[in-house]
């Protein structure tokens, strides 16, 4: 049994990671960096799951399973995202999202 107060540290790290990810997602123009930011957000969520599972329902495994799911989905998502990035590069000779804004009104 771990000291319950420690959950706050873990949640702090998770929140920090999340906001770093959000910040990165909004400020970077490079699609690869934005993908990395999304991964950060996902991992912050993973941390949350682990922490709550560990400290609140340590006799259950739901949080762990969710985490594994998310990792798997993140891997798939990365594959799709990279495919998109490659296609974007092929059509625009750039992976700057500001350059790809034809789909508008």
């Amino acid at each position, binding site marked *: 049994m771990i000291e319950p107060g420690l959950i706050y540290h873990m949640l702090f790290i998770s929140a920090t990671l999340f906001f770093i990810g*959000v910040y990165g997602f*909004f400020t970077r123009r490079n699609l690869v960096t*934005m993908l990395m930011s999304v991964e950060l957000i996902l991992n912050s969520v993973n941390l949350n799951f682990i922490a709550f599972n560990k400290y609140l329902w340590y006799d259950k495994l739901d949080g762990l399973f969710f985490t594994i799911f998310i990792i798997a989905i993140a891997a798939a998502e990365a594959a799709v995202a990279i495919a998109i990035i490659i296609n974007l590069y092929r059509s625009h000779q750039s992976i700057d*999202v500001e350059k*790809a*804004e034809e789909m*508008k*009104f």
Partner: protein
Amino acid sequence: MPNATYITLIILLPLAGFLMLGIFGRKYFKNTSGMIGTTLLFVSTLLALYTAYGYFFEYGKVDGIYQKLVPLKYTWLQFSPGVSIDMGIIIDPISVMMLVVVSFISLMVHIYSLGYMKGDERFPTYYAFLGLFTFSMLGLVISSNIFQIYIFWELVGVSSFLLIGYYYDKPSAVAACKKAFIVTRFADVGFLIGILILSFYSGTLDFNTLIATLTSPESNEYKNAVAVSFLGVSALTWGLVLVFIGGAGKSAMFPLHIWLPDAMEGPTPVSALIHAATMVVAGVFLVARLFPVFAISAPDALSLVGYVGAISALIAAVIACTQTDIKRVLAYSTMSQIGYMMFALGVSKYGGEEGLGYTASMFHLFTHAMFKALLFLGAGAVIHYIHSNEMKDMGGLRKYLPVTHITFLIACLAIAGVPPFAGFFSKEEILLAAFQHNPIIYWIALITSGLTAFYMFRLYFSIFWNKEADQHDAHKSEGGFAMMMPLVLLAIGAAAAGFIPFGHFVSSDGTRLETELHLQFSIAPVALGLAGILIAMWMYKKESTKPDTVAASLSGIYNAAYHKFYIDDIYLFITKKALFNLIGRPAAWIDKNIVDGLVNATGNSTRDISETIKGFQSGKVQQYAIYFLVGIIGLALLFIYFWK
């Protein structure tokens, strides 16, 4: 009881012709369409004659009275118990008589058109329209339901519109067909309201039931219809007057006659068929169909019919004396003769000897169909030869058009009421009926018959005598066998139809009516007719200045008549000046500013809103992500603080 199948065939064959020629004519029957239409109608005519023979001589009579048989009745649209629109066939003396007249005249016109319209670009279309018209007119006369008659009534109007506007590249024809359609349509509104009033009070749309309930003074329906009154006139009378307005529009009665002279823009055979012999008598037929109700329950409405008819007859005869376009003369003459039929109905009573006017009216309808169709077809032959409608271009044609000349003369004698031609007998009966019941109308009719003789022989002498014809058309022939045969057949009809003892077959109550000629009585009209002929001969047989002198000495009335008593101008004034300015312009203003304004405001506001919000759709991924984030934050706040 007759077999309904072949009576239905009479009507459906022309419809089949219309559909076949209308859809496939231009592609497959370019040259044969005339023969197809004529053959179908020939079969129709034979069946109509067979029906007439069967009805009049075999099964029609029960105890000496001709019955109203309904061999076919199919409920088409049921409104409530008892009130339904049926598609049915009614077989009674007038419908059988009309079947024969319409199919026979139509057949003559079909045959004639084979020659007259030969080489026309839209030959199949022409025959398709003729088929449509014949179908509608035959359907009209056998209608067993007042709404059915209205449907066919409108169909007849449409086919008339199509045929008047047949030469659609001629602006005057386009104007004429629009005028005819609008004027008759306007009158038909009255007809429709009349139908609604009559059916509301009688609780039925079926002719036989409607006539039965509205003529029996004991029935509740009758009492209701008489008890309710508007402007001092009972609802029943209003209904019948409104129905008569519809009939007056179709039959070109004053003051709704203005479309008929212009309708002469159509091909001449069409004028013979529609605007002389068949469609324009639809109004007379309608009044005759409802005659028991008019005569028994609403004598006021019937006397209105009488006076409108008499006024139309006189006015049209006066105008006809001054017109120079031969087809227009014939058009006004038609209007005048229909006026005769109308007032003959108007002075008639129901039943027995008193119903002479009814028989006379139908008799005149029958004989008039013969000689007026003949006159128009003859005029068509003349126009075909001369290529002009104006009298001044004609003269001396008797040498070049011998057949036309003789047949035209027979028709003129018939319409002028010279014994023993057909018109004499029917006109005598009408005058006798008028003499017995209404002296004012009798005198009007007598004057009109003198005028009729005058203007018809003015026409005859101007075309066939007067000056010598130019030789420039001498190489042309009179028109082929197709054009001559109808003329001869109709001439036989116009000469001999008067000997049919019409009263034996058609009378107001179905009984046998003996009509006899009173020699003393015939002296006045025949003498007047002969006087008219002699005056016309004196003025027009040789080219002279006499017509101009006479016209000058009657300058006031001549000018008024020449300008058709300014009725067209009055209509133009009322529509262009009054209606357009008082109703048209305000309505246009409301339409432009309020109705359009509302629609435009909706459109504009939608556009403005979308202009302002379209910036959201920027195409930038990160901006979308921001909306997403804001949305998530909003939802989170909602769940945390408000979704307890």
